[in-house]
């Protein structure tokens, strides 16, 4: 199945409203974007093919290093990952929270469902089939849009970052209008990555155990460790909650269509009644599904984003902690060298390098962590307010539907 959608295009089923809410929602996650006219990045279009998604990255800039003021390139997920990794690997950026990489597009579940639907086509009525198909398409579209938005958020974060926005790789990513010939990592590299991660996390525990001299960082460290775990937990729990909410909405949908069949088959007076109730359920089901979708956008996605962002902040603290340990070790080594009066110069240079590195990281890290908190609070505020407003809107809509339906039904009796 090929599905071509631009994020700006109207949704198949849910219309522009759905889309715009979603877009706002996801951009909102990344609140702290200075609206800076010198560099604006967005994803203007996206194309979903069998195993890849092609994003059209659109840039508007007045920066002198770009040849034009406005241009677009086509990028794939792997290229985003390449850009992210290049940031992570760049020692220069050790003191910054590297914006988390967007998650890999995953349409497998949705595609599988669509395929299953095709197989089961014979066993259901035409209306049921069309309805199911529409639903799945809507679901597919929603995942697709989400994916697009996540990638966009990453670029916006980078573009808004005072240092990263000047990165050469980033500029190439934005401007070079051909394939960056980035390939995915091969097995060996993946294995290496795995070991690196194991070492890193073991080291992380070690480093985390070291008492920080700076109260601010000590505090941030304990906070982030706990916060990350809890946001991870909340994110998983919110996913489960929303999934069961969606299932319930699906049930209501199926109930509505069965009631409809009952209404069309029944020859007694009851048929009108069934039809009316079916109509109601059809509508409330849409609202319930929307409640679930909005909770997904405003709550689950927020938590998911901060799960990754807090991981990025943790990584920053790890790098700083590592630098601190290195610095302390260098100090010890220098002391030893002095005591033995051997290789003192070398030890002194090492010690100085470590000291510089540590201080540089600490300097930017402090500001980064303060910014992180500001962004987080603002993002939560925005999302929670919107969540509450949407919940209210939906509940009121539901209430109204129920009231008018009850009015009709009671009038009938």
């Amino acid at each position, binding site marked *: 199945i090929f599905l071509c959608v631009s994020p700006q295009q109207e949704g198949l089923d849910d219309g522009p409203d759905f889309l715009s809410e979603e877009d706002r929602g996801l951009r909102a996650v990344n609140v702290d974007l200075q609206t800076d006219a010198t560099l604006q990045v967005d994803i203007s279009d996206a194309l979903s093919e069998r195993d890849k998604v092609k994003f059209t990255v659109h840039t508007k800039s007045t920066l002198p290093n770009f040849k034009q003021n406005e241009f677009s390139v086509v990028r794939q997920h792997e290229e985003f990952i390449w850009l992210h990794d290049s940031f992570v690997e760049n020692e220069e950026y050790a003191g910054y929270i590297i914006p988390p990489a967007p998650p890999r597009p995953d349409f497998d579940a949705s595609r599988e469902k669509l395929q299953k639907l095709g197989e089961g086509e014979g066993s259901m009525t035409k209306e049921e089939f069309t309805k199911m198909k529409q639903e799945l398409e809507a679901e597919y579209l929603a995942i697709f849009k989400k994916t697009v938005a996540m990638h966009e958020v990453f670029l916006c974060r980078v573009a808004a970052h005072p240092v990263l926005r000047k990165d050469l790789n980033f500029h190439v990513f934005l401007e070079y209008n051909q394939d960056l010939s980035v390939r995915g990592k091969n097995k060996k590299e993946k294995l290496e990555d795995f070991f690196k991660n194991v070492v890193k996390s073991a080291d992380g525990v070690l480093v985390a155990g070291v008492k920080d001299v700076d109260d601010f960082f000590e*505090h941030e460290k304990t*906070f982030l460790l*706990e*916060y990350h775990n*809890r*946001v991870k*937990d*909340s994110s998983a*729990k*919110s996913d*489960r*909650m929303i*999934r*069961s*909410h969606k*299932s*319930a909405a699906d*049930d*209501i949908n*199926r*109930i509505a269509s*069965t*009631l409809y*069949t*009952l209404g069309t*088959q*029944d*020859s*007694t*007076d*009851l048929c009108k*009644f069934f039809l009316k*109730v079916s109509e*109601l359920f059809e509508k*409330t089901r849409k609202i319930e599904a929307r409640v679930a979708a909005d909770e997904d956008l405003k709550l689950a996605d927020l938590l998911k984003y901060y799960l990754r962002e807090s991981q990025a902040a943790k990584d920053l603290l790890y790098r700083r902690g590592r630098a601190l340990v290195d610095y302390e070790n260098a100090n010890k080594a220098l002391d030893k060298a002095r005591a033995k009066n051997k290789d003192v110069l070398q030890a002194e240079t090492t010690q100085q390098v470590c000291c510089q590195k540590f201080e540089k990281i600490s300097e930017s890290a402090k500001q980064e962590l303060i910014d992180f*908190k500001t962004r*987080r*609070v603002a993002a*939560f*505020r925005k999302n*929670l*307010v919107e*969540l*509450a*407003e949407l*919940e*209210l809107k939906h*509940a*009121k809509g*539901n*209430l109204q539907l*129920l*009231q008018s*339906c*009850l009015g009709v*039904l*009671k009038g*009938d*009796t």
Partner: protein
Amino acid sequence: MAASSERSPPPFPDSEEPELLEDSDEEADAFTGTSISEMDSPSPDSTRPPKDIFNEPPEDIFSDPLSNINSEPQKKVDAKIPSPSSDEAVDLFSDPLDDDSEVMSSPEVQNPMPDLLNEPVEAPKSDSSSKSSSVKKAASAEMFGDDDDEEDLFKEPPKVVTKKPQPSGPPVDVFTEVKSDVKVKPQVKDDPTDLFAEEALTAPAPKPSSGSSSSRTNGVHSEEQDLFSEATVELSLDSPCNDRKNKEAVKPSVSAPAAPVASSSSKAPSKSLEELEEEESEDKFDLNISITNPEKVGDGMNAYMAYKVSTQTSLTMFRSKTFTVRRRFSDFLGLFEKLSEKHSQNGYLIPPPPEKSILGMTKVKVGKEDPSSAEFVERRRAALERYLQRVVSHPSLLQDPDVREFLEKEELPRAVSTQALSGAGFLKMLNKATDAVSKMTIKMNEQDVWFDEKIQDVENEEQHLRKLHVMVESLVNHRKELSGNTAVFAKSVAMLGSSEDNTALSRALSQLAEVEDRIEQLHQEQASNDFFTFSELLADYIRLLGAVRGCFDQRMKAWQRWQDAENMLQKKREAEAKLLWANKPDKLQQAKDEITEWEAKVTQYEREFERISATVRKEVIRFDKEKARDFNRQVIKYLESLLHSQQQLIKYWDAFLPEAKAIV
């Protein structure tokens, strides 16, 4: 048809007159007398007019009645009405006619039925002497103790009687033509005993022939005959005499209701029997039953739940206005079995009790206070309450002494047979047995459009309700899951809030956790409403529809019995013919006796079939009405629960919004 001429022989002098009278009755009733003169006067002059009159109706009569065994009565009535073409009559029956043409016609359909039911009641009393029929009638008389209708019936005869003299003059021709209505008389007549007996003995042979001959001599269209023969072929054995028999047999019932209908319509033309019925049920239903205080009695595996059954009523049939008894589950099953033993073969719809659940009950027996067994007990309590309410809201079942005993009597003998069989198991067995019967025997070719459609409808509906039930169950489960997951999420958010170092955000998150906690409660309540208000309603009606199918099966059984008797009679007749041919007069008498005996049986079974058809139809109509009422009430209740949920949601989120806005 040749055979018919053999039989047609001599119309009995007695019978002639009665027949005439009878005609007059019918017509008198149907057309308020005016028609009689029309009818009769032409007949002496020429046979033509009457023929025409009958030609048209016969088409209807034969096509409809034969094809729909049950509905014949009403339809005949309708059919006849137009024949005289008197304006009055048309006016009177304008509704029924319309309905008839539409075939749907619920009011019309209902009218005749009660009458039909009464008919047998009355008949038996008068002709208790008549052999076979008396048995059945006695039974039926008991069953349908509707006094009012009887009165109606009796009121008419007088009318009839007065009119008799006039028509009696007319010639034999008319008579034979009119023949088809012959049987009416006995029932309506004042001295049915004789007539009836006569008929039983002698009528079969002459009447059929006369009927058929009349139709033929009248120059009935071939169409008619085709229709006729077709119908009969489908119905039963194909020999002409059988056909005639059928036709003849059909008629009595047909004509009988005709009179009552006419009477009722003339008395209160606008008032349908349906309405009457409703009034009746409303009057009767001054009876509130509630089941409360489920209580575990005993210990271990011998433990059982006892329920308090409280009744509140102003009905005089009970000794006091309020009383309570304690009953256990098997008592409820026992009541069901007693009722179905007595009434189900008559076509009554016995509300089925909830299923026996060994798993659920074992949990209750063994387990202490865990929520699932509490839910089980509540579910059962509510189901038993609904079951009992359905039983007592049935006007006929309420009259049953066992029902009264169940409600009133302090101690009930322990129901034993229910130990092994649960209500559902019993039903299943019953269904299986009847299914097997229906599969083994020739599939009944449904001649009654109403039943044909209704049986289909019920099957479809049951199927859809099952589907719906599965979905609602799934909704219940998902809602419970949602409730659980919301609770977990609420805790998680509370933790997140506690580790958040921005004070306002931390506060907002713990507020969110509280909101989610409350929402969890809402989901839980809603899940229980999904279940008790919606899902259980569907479960009830799936069970009830099963019981409705049971009624249809009972009707089919009755039909089968009739057909079997019909076949037997045919064989006996053939035997008689052979004996005649072989010229063995010694055995002839015995053969004749047997024929008479089987003729009586056929008549009896046929009546039974008609009666059961009428009962079933009445039951189903009543069921449909109750169903509509139940669904309406329950679904409204359900929607109100949803409404309440939404109101609460609004309240919670409204309170949360300022907290979210307060985040700085």
